């Protein structure tokens, strides 16, 4: 299929049968592959323009590996990843570079994902500079505008990451991801390291930015409540496979898969009466 022809009608991101196996090696001089970890084992999903697909699952379910394989940060073992109809699985770093403008990532730990020795202005402006979008005073203007858009102030331009709180650092990470006006942003547990009162702020910010820039999100998290709030559709992962996929409300209200039911049943409900009822109803 020719990428340019289908760009209009093809989904923004189409992942088909994505597989990522990690070898388990034994031996001292000669590495023998004795087994494989099937981290992602045949995963298929689509993300349409401007849509949010939530990916939930417990630790080890393969959700983060799937994201990294989509972005080609790790090479998938097999399967296809199409971005605007164009196959990107197996592309090299150089071939991926122009595409990086279109797909960005927000990480879980805003402490670890910002270079402590760089100023905020550099961190947010670097993608713009590297892609040759802006330089000099224009670059500065664009970065300051971005900082204000994510709820920081343009005076933060010359500060270092350690001068900010966790929530503010996550805002810096969001500004950096948005700098190149991407079409797809992969959010890997973007609020799980934040305090409850700050989580809602960041979720709402992501919501606003989506409306404003027409972003599509692949939103990965273990907190099902947050995922359900932000997602149009949800895919549930378990042991490297997607066990259920559907609209956010349908998956949460009428789960079909046994594992999804178990997962939802374990989410604590912040309502003592309902929680007591639920415990009385379930057999220990």
């Amino acid at each position, binding site marked *: 299929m020719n990428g340019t022809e289908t760009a209009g009608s093809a989904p923004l991101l189409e992942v088909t049968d994505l597989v990522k196996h990690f070898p388990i090696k034994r031996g001292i001089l000669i590495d023998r592959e004795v087994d494989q970890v099937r981290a992602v084992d045949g995963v298929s999903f689509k993300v349409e323009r401007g849509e949010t697909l939530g990916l939930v699952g*417990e*630790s080890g379910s393969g959700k983060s590996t799937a994201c990294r394989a989509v972005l080609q940060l790790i090479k998938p073992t097999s399967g296809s990843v199409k971005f605007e109809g164009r196959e990107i699985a197996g592309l090299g770093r150089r071939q991926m570079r122009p595409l990086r403008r279109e797909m960005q990532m927000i990480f879980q730990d805003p402490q670890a994902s910002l270079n402590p020795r760089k100023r905020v202005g550099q961190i947010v402006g670097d993608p713009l500079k590297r892609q040759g979008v802006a330089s000099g005073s224009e670059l500065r203007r664009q970065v300051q505008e971005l900082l204000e858009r994510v709820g920081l102030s343009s005076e933060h331009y010359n500060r270092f990451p350690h001068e900010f709180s966790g929530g503010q650092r996550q805002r810096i990470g969001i500004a950096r991801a948005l700098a190149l006006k991407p079409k797809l942003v992969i959010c890997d547990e973007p609020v799980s390291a934040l305090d409850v009162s700050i989580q*809602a702020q960041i979720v709402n910010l992501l919501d606003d930015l989506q409306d404003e820039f027409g972003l599509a999100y692949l939103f990965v998290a273990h907190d099902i409540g947050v995922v359900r709030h932000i997602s149009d559709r949800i895919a549930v992962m378990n042991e490297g496979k997607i066990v259920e996929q559907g609209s*956010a*409300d349908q998956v949460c209200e009428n789960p079909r898969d046994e594992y999804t039911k178990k997962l939802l049943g374990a989410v*604590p409900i*912040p309502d003592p009466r309902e929680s007591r009822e639920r415990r009385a109803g379930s057999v220990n």
Partner: protein
Amino acid sequence: MSLLSVSDLRVGFATEDGVVQAVDGVSFDLSPGEVLAIVGESGSGKSVTAQTLIGLTRAKNARIEGSVQLGGEDLLSAGDAEMRRLRGERIGMVFQDPMTSFNPVYRLGNQIVEAIRAHRGDVSKEQGRARAVELFEAVGIPDAKRRVDDYPHEFSGGMRQRAMIAMALALEPEVLIADEPTTALDVTIQAQILRLLEQLNRERNLATILITHDLGVVAEVADRVLVMYAGKVVEQGTLDEIFYDPQHPYTWGLMGSLTRIDRPRPRRLPQIAGQPPSLLDLPEGCPFRPRCPHEFSKCPQYPPLEAKLPESPGHCDRCWLSPEEKREKRLVEGQIGLEAPRA
């Protein structure tokens, strides 16, 4: 009759930039068999409170005031040797991350035996080992006989937390302090650990202090709740009082910003604006004032922690609004919340 009684506990740390008053006047009583949840965000002082109870915050730059009484014994004035005896013997502690709380190079069983023998010199290694197996069985670790010889890395996160609880219970303490015991765990495992804590609490009449930021976890296990903000208790009451009749705007804000899978989702998530204040630069009066949409002329004075509802004398809060004003202001689109989500 309360087992543990904390009154006006204050913990301050001298730093280069000034004194950080991490805990500022915390008081509570805990009875046998009761689960008290201390809820708060990072920096609220919930963990420092718990650590101070077992003497883990004693440092050169720390200033600890107030009183902590455990069955007639004063814990704050206890010497280091005395404190070592009390830890484990009378108060057990479970931490958030069981991986860093065990020594990775010793077998789990041996670590438990060591803990027992440090307090009870007359227990032989064989007896200690038998006790460790018993404890593993009590906390639901399958195949306990074999698994006591495993190393910590051979356990999954949930099993490791069970082993941690087994170790905390080894000397049959009266009080168990669990600091974010399920935060690092997956939800399905979290549910199991919460059931276990509940069961131990019931069967052994164990008084439990549960430190958490997760109101869902609180709703599942707590009897009473203490809400902390910037080192201070802003509200305390029974579980139902806190959830169905919350009096402090910060508590409303926390309730309102929860995402709930059992309710239709709102178009926008209600949020608390701003961020917690720096403990080095607290606002005058109520610490929540800068983030509170209901601030008024009285708020620059520090409100006392008082019961204002005649029908619930144990339900106290630190806010100048009258109960009538609160009932009216806390309803946002029919639900408890701080303010309507901005579009």
